């Protein structure tokens, strides 16, 4: 599609296990700024089998909600999702389409943009409007380079944004909007893939991509069994356990917990690195954390260069003492301050 028109700004809502995932609301916070700058409506697109009530999307900033409802969209099958979204994009001609850089968002947008012949900018950390166009800012080469990217001609201008890099707007239950029920075409719903099942992972806390607090360990944890201490601290802080590549390669922690260039990019409110020296590849994965605390025996460890607070000392000496103090010391209970911001 070519430039022109007064198309809407779209965000892609995400349903996991039958419920709207919070990234759906974060995306509306991103989209609200863009839609207001362009002076066009903001819409949330919800593909699913039994999509939830749209009221919460209106409350979080949507002017419009498109419900694309069909049993064929019960599971995330990338070809069916991309097919339906391609039809909808062609029919309604949005000028901007924003998704979250989750496994779903990355997958469906990567298939969709190629089908539409549009531009897609991955993993943006900032969005703004310049000369009526979306200005997309994204890191590359492990966060060492920041690039500003525009898509002057093709529509929609597509991008994914980092999960948790923006807080949802304060919900306003009195906000109303327009609900559009879209009936997907049978031909577009046909998928070559068959969903067989989902095996949830046993772990403390949320997946690290969703976690507000990450307690991460590296080689300084010395042994696999010491990761139990990290799990204990994670439980006490309401967080999840992350790991450096070295710790994962040594088999101390699962792949799903690896933070870094060959692992996950994470954006928690608080990242506590235990015995992680801070290779460039690791820093690339946790640079988006709001607050960083590091404990490392080496005063010259690069992790201290990106930390807000550092303790030079042995992780294995400091960690058990901190856990003990947290367990018995009830004077710090700031009741959800982290979660509330």
């Amino acid at each position, binding site marked *: 599609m070519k430039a022109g028109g007064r198309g809407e700004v779209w965000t892609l809502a995400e349903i996991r296990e039958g419920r709207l995932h919070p990234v759906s609301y974060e995306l509306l916070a991103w989209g609200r700024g863009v839609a207001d700058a362009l002076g066009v409506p903001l819409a949330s697109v919800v593909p699913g089998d039994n999509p939830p009530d749209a009221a919460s999307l209106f409350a979080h900033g949507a002017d419009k909600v498109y419900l694309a409802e069909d049993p064929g969209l019960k599971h995330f099958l990338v070809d069916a999702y991309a097919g339906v979204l391609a039809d909808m994009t062609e029919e309604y001609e949005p000028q901007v389409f924003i998704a979250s850089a989750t*496994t779903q968002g990355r997958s469906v947008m990567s298939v969709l943009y190629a089908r539409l012949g549009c531009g897609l900018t991955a993993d943006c950390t900032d969005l703004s409007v310049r000369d009526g166009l979306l200005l997309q800012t994204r890191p590359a080469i492990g966060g060492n380079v920041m690039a500003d990217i525009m898509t002057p001609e093709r529509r929609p201008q597509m991008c994914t944004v980092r999960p948790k890099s923006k807080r949802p707007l304060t919900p306003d239950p009195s906000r109303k909007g327009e609900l559009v029920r879209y009936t997907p075409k049978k031909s577009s719903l046909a998928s070559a893939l068959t969903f067989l099942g989902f095996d949830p992972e046993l772990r403390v806390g949320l997946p690290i991509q969703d976690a507000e607090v990450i307690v991460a360990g590296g080689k300084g944890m010395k042994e696999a069994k010491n990761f139990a201490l990290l799990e204990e601290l994670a439980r*006490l802080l309401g967080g999840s356990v992350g790991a450096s590549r070295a710790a994962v390669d040594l088999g101390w922690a699962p792949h799903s917990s690896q933070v870094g*260039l060959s692992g996950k990019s994470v954006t928690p409110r608080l990242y506590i690195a235990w015995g992680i020296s801070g290779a460039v590849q690791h820093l690339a994965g946790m640079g988006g954390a709001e607050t960083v605390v590091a404990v490392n025996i080496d005063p010259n460890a690069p992790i201290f260069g990106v930390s807000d*607070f550092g303790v030079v000392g042995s992780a294995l000496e400091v960690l058990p003492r901190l856990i003990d103090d947290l367990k018995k010391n009830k004077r710090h209970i700031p009741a959800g301050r982290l979660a509330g911001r």
Partner: protein
Amino acid sequence: MEEALRIAVLIKQVPATENVKIDPETGVMIREGLEAEVNPLDLYALEEAVRIKEKFPHTRATAVTMGPPAADKAARYAIAMGCDEGVLVTDRAFAGSDTLATATVLSHALYRLGAFDLILTGERATDGETGQVGPAVGSLLGVPVLTFVSRLEILPNGRILAERAVEGGHERLSAPIPSLAVVVKEINVPRLCTLGGKLKGKKAEIRTLSFADLGLPRERVGLAGSPTKVVKVCYPQVTRKGRKVSAAEDFDGALEALETFLANVGAGGNPALPGAEEGEA
């Protein structure tokens, strides 16, 4: 699987980042003297292809890379790891291609090279970090795309069984042949090249495909074929000037300072925070 399988592995040559240093004054990556290497995340795709070859001996694995003429080294590395052949897609006309133009070139190259049963690639390249070329190639070729694949098995009935590593667990799916699978690190441990393998890679004839070989219009490749335009690049300072205390000098003082800091950012130990119980089931 009695019939021969044909596998294509899409790989990219990237600057070796393993020993990257950051200039502490400017925060800029020091790129001088950096060697090029096969994108580390593509090694998992190459390994998976070689493992399938070992299981189904009639399999033929072709590594395909797009890049400057010197990117033939990536194709040679793929052969050293156990691929049968390497193809380098190279032309000055491709310079400045964004992910769509790159996927357009690669999908046409694959089309020229014939019918593949399985196309494998790594999760993303460690330089551009978009992860959107692989799925776009599948999309343009019209073959099903499997992303974040952490396990892959070719079943006797000719279907592909795949596990996808997603937030909070693993999804199991089946897919037909042909499909394109983007694999993640979890899938295997890439082997080291043997001396014999390296020799084979060095001696191998690397087939090249140029712009003229692909039959593509000029406006679909390079800068002209790229919907996205980079308008500015900068090198951000990633350093923070945080406070540092020494537990070696004063353990109790350091611990207390740490606890105070954590309490001030709202992490004083509150099991009622979200996430404390969820996901433990």
